[in-house]
């Protein structure tokens, strides 16, 4: 279908964009890459009074390293993230995940901030932010604030962002040298949203991080499974117990694409594979 009528504004500055949001409240929608928003408009799932196109806010795009972290601007396109040498070198797990994000034409336009603000629980970037303990930088009428990713995703397609706020970017703390990783996802076709996906990090201290996508209303950090793995030093027995623990701590949805039981099963299989990949990289 065609989108419903709306007004359109293309601010040239962040202040102007914030002012438009302040004036229009929940009648306004931010337009970044538009790869989810435009589809929802075409389906008429949304009917905003005005679209605020932030694509001219060039300062919100870019990837920088400093102060023990990687900072990624909200307007950074998926393709820029996918092809960033800095990301490939510092956060190879994120680089690997980007290879699973949609198709080139979508990655050329879609943005990091858009993916996080849209908060599809089956998308890769929200889960990767949970894995990497991201901090989100947000601007609003009262100035800027920071939100831990672990407080950001509040439900399927719901976040802690206010109607009058704009996501500026994310900060990802550096990983300890020697951190091993694994990423596995399963989708019916390349580029589709995953039925389930898993990312793991194993730090040299033995600490394990495990994040999942597509298996709940939000991305999940499987804390009980992480504890089993750390306690059991990634032994086969510990992996088995971790899989049991994570299958208990997720609540997958039944939908057209897969049943909850299948997704729960898949989460365990993918976790076992991702951990095996991480163990191989440790050796």
């Amino acid at each position, binding site marked *: 279908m065609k989108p419903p009528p709306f007004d359109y504004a293309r601010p040239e500055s962040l202040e102007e964009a914030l002012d438009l949001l302040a004036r229009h409240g929940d009648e306004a929608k931010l337009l970044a890459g538009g790869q989810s928003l435009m589809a929802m408009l075409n389906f008429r799932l949304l009917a905003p009074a005005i679209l605020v196109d932030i694509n001219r806010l060039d300062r919100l795009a870019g990837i920088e390293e400093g102060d023990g972290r990687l900072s990624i601007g909200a307007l950074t396109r998926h393709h820029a993230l996918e092809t960033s040498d800095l990301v490939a070198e510092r956060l190879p797990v994120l680089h690997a995940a980007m290879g699973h994000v949609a*198709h*080139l034409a979508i990655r050329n*336009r879609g943005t990091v901030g858009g993916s996080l603000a849209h908060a599809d629980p089956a998308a890769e970037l929200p889960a990767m932010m949970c894995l990497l303990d991201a901090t989100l930088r947000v601007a609003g009428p009262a100035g800027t604030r920071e939100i831990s990713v672990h407080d950001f995703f509040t439900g399927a397609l719901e976040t802690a962002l206010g109607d009058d706020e704009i996501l500026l970017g994310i900060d990802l703390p550096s990983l300890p040298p020697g951190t091993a990783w694994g990423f596995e996802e399963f989708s019916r076709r390349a580029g589709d949203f995953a039925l389930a996906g898993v990312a793991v990090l194993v730090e040299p201290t033995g600490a394990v991080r495990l994040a999942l996508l597509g298996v709940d209303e939000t991305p999940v950090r499987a804390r009980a499974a992480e504890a089993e793995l750390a306690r059991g030093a990634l032994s086969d027995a510990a992996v088995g117990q971790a899989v049991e623990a994570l299958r208990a701590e997720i609540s997958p949805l039944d939908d057209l694409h897969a049943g909850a039981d299948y997704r729960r099963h898949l989460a365990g299989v993918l976790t076992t594979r991702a951990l095996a990949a991480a163990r191989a990289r440790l050796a």
Partner: protein
Amino acid sequence: MSGRHTITVTVNGRAYTREVAPRLLLADFLREELGLTGTHVGCEHGICGACTVLIDGDSARSCLTLAVQCDGAEVGTIEGLGRVADLGRLQQAFREHHALQCGFCTAGMLITVTDLLAKYPLASEADIREGLSGNLCRCTGYENIVRAVQDLVAAREADPA
């Protein structure tokens, strides 16, 4: 801010100035305002890939882009890749390999392949298939499209220009 916007979009090297409603999709702008009907409209939600065009050199879904967003942009469509009497390199490869049957997906396929060839090594058949996975074809079973792209990859390596 409200009402119609005057935009200037360069399409295949030619500048067009038009007044458009904000909700006009780029796909409909190309087809209905400019008469460039080579860009096809399939699903209108970014899945099928039929409407893929180049925006400032990067492939994009013209059904997920507003015309008003393209003010000042350079858009490339199938009409810019060649003509019936003078087929472009990609079109020629598709013709030689019979990489189309009904032709509905072909414009989007060719634009996607243009961008894939510019950005990726496409070293294996699997990489080519993954690259094409965002463009649905219901006639060919993809085999002949993959062969056409393999030829184009080989030609690119022989002559990187």
